[in-house]
């Protein structure tokens, strides 16, 4: 790093470049945003911009936005988007909003990277800490990731969740646990699943407390911050109640995620399974899927207690695979965090396979979807097969990263084993 000024200039350049690229895409290809909005890989029933438009229309005409069973997103989006000029007549304002949100996420990511939490946490310092990328590079990787750009152009509302999650992590690292909890509450309010990130985030903020007013007991710290989350969430819920005038939004937003009542295909693994499921076993397997999703939190927190940021990263990867309504937006969030572990990349064993599988699924997914829905020459199994491959690639990446991080940790304990081949038994 050569001086603050140069870095600042580069950062500004990067952000301006990213914003210009997005604006250019928006304006040069006016049909592109709507095309991407309609893609199942980008828009899920709980994040779709099209459905947001429907909810907004109903809301502006004084009808409950949840009537008709199309809109499944948080009610607070509605006043926010009704403040903007209509996206059909002045789309530029919506575009600007999404670009700003993306830049804010990149900013938070840059802060996370620059803090060096990934290589040396409070309880563990990696021997390979010298080999890492600067925040600028990581922000650039995020901003110019095609998945991120596609999500931004598709105006999926999951970018708000991404932004809130990244800010929660950044605040926790910078020693502002209360702000971190507030950001996490927002993320949970928007998408519900970030609530599962609470335990590792608590550990992270506990480890990074400012030296001035350190709280000794983890239990007291936990209780205090859980009450913060509860307080913020209940405030958000009561605001939503005031806006929509009923508690109807609870079953329509979180209920849909819990019961998977909308079976629109997506890149996840749930929809096909529950299309086929016997009705009498449906509720049982919904519970199994949710328990499976949440069972990783405890184990990972215990196992990698020394590096809570790793736990957060791995959980984001797991959610991108096993969430009820995943999209490539979740993938882009996970891919935003992975470059923080540049120092363990040499320890990963399947980099090529993972890259190949993810690319394969990325290109064949839309093709198979087309074959199924438009050409009619394939069936649902085509698309489901490719989402399985996608899930396989992602889980391989999560496993590989876990392996690399643990091996890195292990080599501190056993310096004589560095560089030696090991075998999994």
């Amino acid at each position, binding site marked *: 790093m050569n001086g603050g000024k140069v870095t600042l200039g580069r950062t500004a350049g990067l952000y301006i470049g990213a914003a210009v690229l997005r604006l250019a895409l928006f304006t040069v290809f006016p049909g592109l945003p709507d095309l991407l909005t309609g893609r199942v890989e980008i828009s899920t029933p709980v994040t779709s911009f099209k459905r947001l438009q429907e909810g907004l229309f109903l809301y502006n005409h004084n009808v409950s936005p949840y009537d008709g069973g199309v809109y499944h997103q948080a009610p607070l989006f509605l006043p926010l988007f009704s403040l903007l000029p209509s996206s059909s007549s002045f789309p530029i304002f919506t575009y600007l909003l999404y670009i700003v949100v993306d830049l804010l996420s990149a900013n938070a990511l840059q802060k996370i990277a620059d803090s060096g939490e990934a290589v040396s946490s409070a309880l563990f310092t990696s021997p390979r800490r010298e080999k890492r990328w600067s925040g600028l590079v990581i922000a650039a990787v995020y901003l110019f990731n095609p998945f991120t750009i596609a999500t931004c152009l598709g105006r999926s509302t999951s970018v708000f969740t991404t932004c809130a999650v990244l800010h929660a992590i950044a605040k926790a690292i910078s020693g502002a646990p209360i702000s971190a909890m507030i950001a996490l509450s927002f993320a949970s309010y928007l998408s519900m699943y970030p609530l599962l990130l609470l335990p590792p985030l608590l550990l992270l903020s506990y480890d990074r407390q400012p030296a001035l007013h350190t709280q000794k007991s983890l239990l007291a710290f936990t209780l205090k911050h859980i009450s913060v989350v509860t307080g913020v969430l209940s405030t958000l819920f009561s605001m939503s109640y005031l806006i929509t005038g009923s508690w109807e939004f609870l079953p329509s937003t979180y209920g849909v995620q819990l019961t998977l009542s909308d079976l629109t295909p997506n890149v996840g693994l749930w929809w096909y399974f529950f299309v086929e499921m016997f009705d*009498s076993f449906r509720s049982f397997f919904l519970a199994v899927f949710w328990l499976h999703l949440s069972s990783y939190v*405890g*184990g990972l927190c215990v196992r990698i207690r020394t590096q809570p940021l790793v736990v957060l990263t791995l959980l984001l990867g797991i959610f991108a695979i096993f969430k009820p309504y995943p999209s490539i937006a979740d993938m882009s969030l996970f891919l935003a965090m992975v470059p923080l572990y540049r120092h363990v990349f040499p320890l990963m064993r399947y980099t090529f396979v993972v890259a190949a599988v993810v690319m394969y699924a990325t290109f064949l997914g839309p093709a198979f979807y087309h074959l199924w829905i438009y050409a009619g020459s394939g069936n649902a199994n085509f698309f489901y097969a490719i989402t399985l491959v996608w*899930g396989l690639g992602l889980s391989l990446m999560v496993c590989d990263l876990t392996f690399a991080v643990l091996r890195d940790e292990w080599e501190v304990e056993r310096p004589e084993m560095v560089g030696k081949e090991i075998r999994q038994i």
Partner: protein
Amino acid sequence: MAETTTDSVLVTESVAKYDGAETARKQPPPEKPADVRRRSLVIVSFWLIVLCLGLPIWWQTTTIYRAKLPLDDMLDWAEGRACRPVFPLRISVEANDLQQQEAQNLLRLTQHALDDLNDFSGHHLRLQLSPPGRQNESAEIEDTSALTIRLLPGDSPASALHPYSSILDITYPPNSVPTQTSSSSALATYIAGQLRSTFAEEQAIISYLLSTTSFSNEQRPQGLTPEAAESLAKRTTRSLKYSPTYHLTFSLFTGGHQPSSWDIEAAVDEFMRPVLDVLTPIHNFTIDTQIQLYAAPSVQSQVLNKEDLSSFVNAAEWPLSPSIGGAPTVNFIAYIGNQTIGLPPTDQDASDGALATSQSWLVPQWGTVYLLPLPEDTTHVSVLTLKQPLLTFTSHLLSLLGTPQSGSLPLRLSTLSRIRSADLLLRASSTLGSLARLSLALPSISIPSSVADGVAKTMAHLRLACDTLGTPEALYHARVAEQEAERAFFEKSMVGQLYFPDEHKIAVYLPLLGPVGVPLVMGLLNELKAWRKRRREALEKGKAKKDT
């Protein structure tokens, strides 16, 4: 997908075990106690979720709710043990010209004669003497008694049934009145015979109904000849299934462009309404009418023979909806055309000739077609022209509803209500029996509480119907019972899981839970093994220390 799941679990756990496993070959440094504890914690964290959340949820979501059904009572109903269908019919006798004593005596003898004649215990005729001089109040008596016998002195024994009321006039020569002491009397036997023949059809129908269900054998009548049973079966198949409401559709079809209007409303009011009104206690009717121009029948020939009749109705093109609002539809079609029905001369026997006159025929369980020849230039069909078609429709409606054919109209209708209540009672009972057998045969079928409610309601109404058989309430209760029984039997959530054997559960659980379960169980087993080994070593160490 499940495999990828286990992958990540496996890695977390097996990587945690590297220390122990890898060093086993090369005599590595012993595992640190902190690592051991951490591994146990990881395994416990997974098992806690399985045990504390997984198991209760599994129990909660997959237990089959089986409401308790009174199976024995239900089977009792189905097999006729719970109810003996008995129709006590009260017949009042008006004998104003006889002395009280004589009348009583005649009554006693007639009752004896009736009991001797009666071979079917379900059908009781009970005579009672109505107080003399109350003829003007006969309306009141009619409510409770099925038939009134009026004894009138005359020259010779003769009987006549009033066509429009349920009164049987019997004339007797005064000298035939039995004396106080006589033990038999020709007049009594005569009256008994007349009564029996009046109710013969009803008795036959009810005994036929009983014989077709699984009601116990002892109540089955012996007097039913195979021919009689066959003709009854024919009539039963011809009549519509009972429904509290029927929808009557009157359609005028014409091959050309006229006539284009008809006075159907006035005609229905004049010729059919009276019959519909007297049917009100048993059925409700809704009516609609339509005219269709340029409607061609499926059969074009001038003279229709017997085979043509069944295909005459052009079901593909004529707008005849099968049912409106859930009520079954009865179709009455007047077709304007000069086609005629050619009846073979030999076909005049009762079974077919009675159905088809030269202009109309009855379609079983469906309705009636009437061929109405009109002059070419008729544009409007008047009430008068419609008289004959509507009278035909009315009589066909009665037989479509299953009304008995003999006797006066009030008598036929009261018989109809008794037959219908018996029919519904039997059907509801047999549905209950089927439900009971179903729940016994399939122990894994779920029985929602709504089914138990329906069964309880059915049985309550069946009991009421059985106790009041022969009265109008019986029909109401039997109707409710039948509806509730059908609803309980065809409960949606029950039918879905009609066949789901235990082997299927393995196929449901194993593909997902198997791969997830293997690492969980293996991790737990390994951990337990390691823990036992450590304990044994600790014990041995302790012993060795003591020994030294």
